[in-house]
């Protein structure tokens, strides 16, 4: 159970990335977060695993208050939070299986992990994770020899090897072509359902999100503007998420739009840049 209560995030440079977000999600749910670049999606995910401190509000995961934890407690908590990155972020020079075993590092502390020792149980979990994403045959391939789609599936395997309470995926298919995107999304959704893990996916491709997720959350200018079933995403709602300038009073239009957007994203509402 993830509870986000009135979270607000202001960066040291004064930018307000998240104005106020509240959200509750249960185990087994597949939640897609949609919104323009700079809407606060990435920031929200980074808050949940403690990479980004919040300015106000609380985030609670299975009763534990993440926003109140010190560095050591957050590190321990991250063992239970899988994170999937847009650019995969595998250690390129190591084999796929070692990358998956890294999901076990937090459970294998001390000197033995530093010399590469993982006991049979850890290795079983890693192999099983690779098997779940149908990549067992690539176990001993170096990560830099895998294709983009395979890399992202290895990173899904790394996340589930953590036996996580929650999986956070930040634009998991933004670096893949449309066909691979569907494949990787379906793998991620299938694995998440099989394991019954709460999964939150930041994603730009609305159609793809509708195909695989039970619930859509639309964020615009740091606030939730839609939270509900994929079917409820009408043109009007999508306009509120992606083309909200329309709804501003005429004279405010220009001024507000420029203020809310990052200057580098001032053109093109549907930019795919992260």
């Amino acid at each position: 159970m993830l509870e986000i209560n009135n979270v607000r995030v202001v960066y040291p440079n004064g930018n307000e990335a998240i104005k106020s977000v509240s959200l509750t999600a249960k185990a087994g749910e597949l939640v897609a977060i949609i919104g323009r670049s700079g809407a606060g999606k990435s920031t929200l995910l980074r808050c949940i695993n403690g990479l980004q401190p919040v300015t106000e509000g609380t985030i609670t995961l299975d009763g534990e208050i993440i926003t109140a934890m010190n560095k050591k407690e957050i590190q321990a908590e991250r063992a239970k939070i899988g994170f999937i990155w847009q650019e995969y972020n595998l250690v390129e020079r190591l084999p796929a299986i070692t990358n998956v075993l890294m999901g076990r590092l937090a459970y294998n502390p001390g000197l033995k992990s530093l010399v590469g020792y993982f006991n049979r149980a850890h290795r079983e979990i890693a192999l099983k994770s690779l098997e779940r994403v149908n990549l067992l045959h690539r176990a001993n391939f170096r990560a830099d020899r895998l294709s983009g789609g395979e890399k992202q599936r290895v990173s899904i395997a790394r996340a589930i090897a953590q036996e996580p309470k929650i999986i956070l995926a930040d634009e998991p298919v933004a670096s893949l072509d449309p066909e691979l995107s569907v494949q990787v999304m379906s793998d991620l959704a299938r694995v998440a359902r099989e394991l019954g893990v709460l999964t939150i996916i930041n994603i730009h491709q609305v159609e793809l999100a509708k195909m695989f997720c039970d619930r859509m959350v639309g964020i615009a200018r740091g606030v939730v503007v839609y939270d509900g079933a994929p079917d409820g995403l009408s043109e009007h709602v999508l306009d509120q998420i992606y083309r909200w300038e329309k709804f501003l009073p005429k004279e405010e239009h220009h001024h507000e739009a420029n203020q809310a957007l990052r200057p580098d994203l001032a053109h093109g509402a549907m930019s795919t840049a992260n």
Partner: protein
Amino acid sequence: MTTSTQTAAKPLPAPISPEELRARMLRPIPTPSLRGVLIFVAVMTVLAWAWSASRPTAINRVEGIGDILGAMGDLIGRMFPINFEFARGTENTITLFGREMVIGWPLIITATIETVQMAIIGTLGAVIFSVPVSLLAARNTSPHPIIYQSVRFVLNFMRSIPELIWAILFVAGVGFGAFAGVLALVFGSLGSLARIYAEAIEQIDPQQVLAVRATGASGVQAFVYAVIPQALPLLISYSIIFFESNVRHATILGLVGAGGLGVKLWEYTGLGDYQRLMGTIVVLVVAVTIIDRFSSWLRQRFI
């Protein structure tokens, strides 16, 4: 990586008319600018000043190019015929098929081998010290900016001391022989090796490290699983380059009595025995060439 691009505000040159620009571009030889002339005069002045201390003086007994060539020719003449030093260096008795055999290597070979042995141990010592030092000297792994700055300062200081000076210090400290030479190689390499190790560590992709940290792994685990694998090819490559250059340095160290082939070079030079000196140099060139080839082959396998 998102680093802000900072371009220093440089004043633009004064605008010129398109006709003027066109005329200038069409000139067969560009008109020298005042700035160009000033730079030329300044460079010439520095060169003249440097030559004033470098030119041959009365003590060199050479007047003109012909004299220099004659002197060199005379020296080269005294190097031939080349004489290889075949006196036995070491003798070992081995038993082969029930018969005792005495195997002895020529002195020149044992001295060359000693040089390579010194280079191997000297480089290994430098590598062992450089790994932890470079962690403190790399911006992304150093625990504190003050530590980073002070380690860099010490490394710069060490780098400004040539191997030969280290050798003189260690010969004075631990006595003549190869061990003093090895210590000279370790400390002579440490300053540069730790610095380029640190630069290799600074070049890694921080996102891969962040991803490992995000699984809840500790800092040390992330270092072993994400920093080291990324930096390793460069670390190995640099270490091999240092081994190569340490073989060359090790030959020089003998000049101050710190073991290796240089001891022989020094001896023959002192005796004026240029034929044996040439023989030693030939062996040295062959050995260094073989090692260069070997190590560049080895390095290619790690990239």
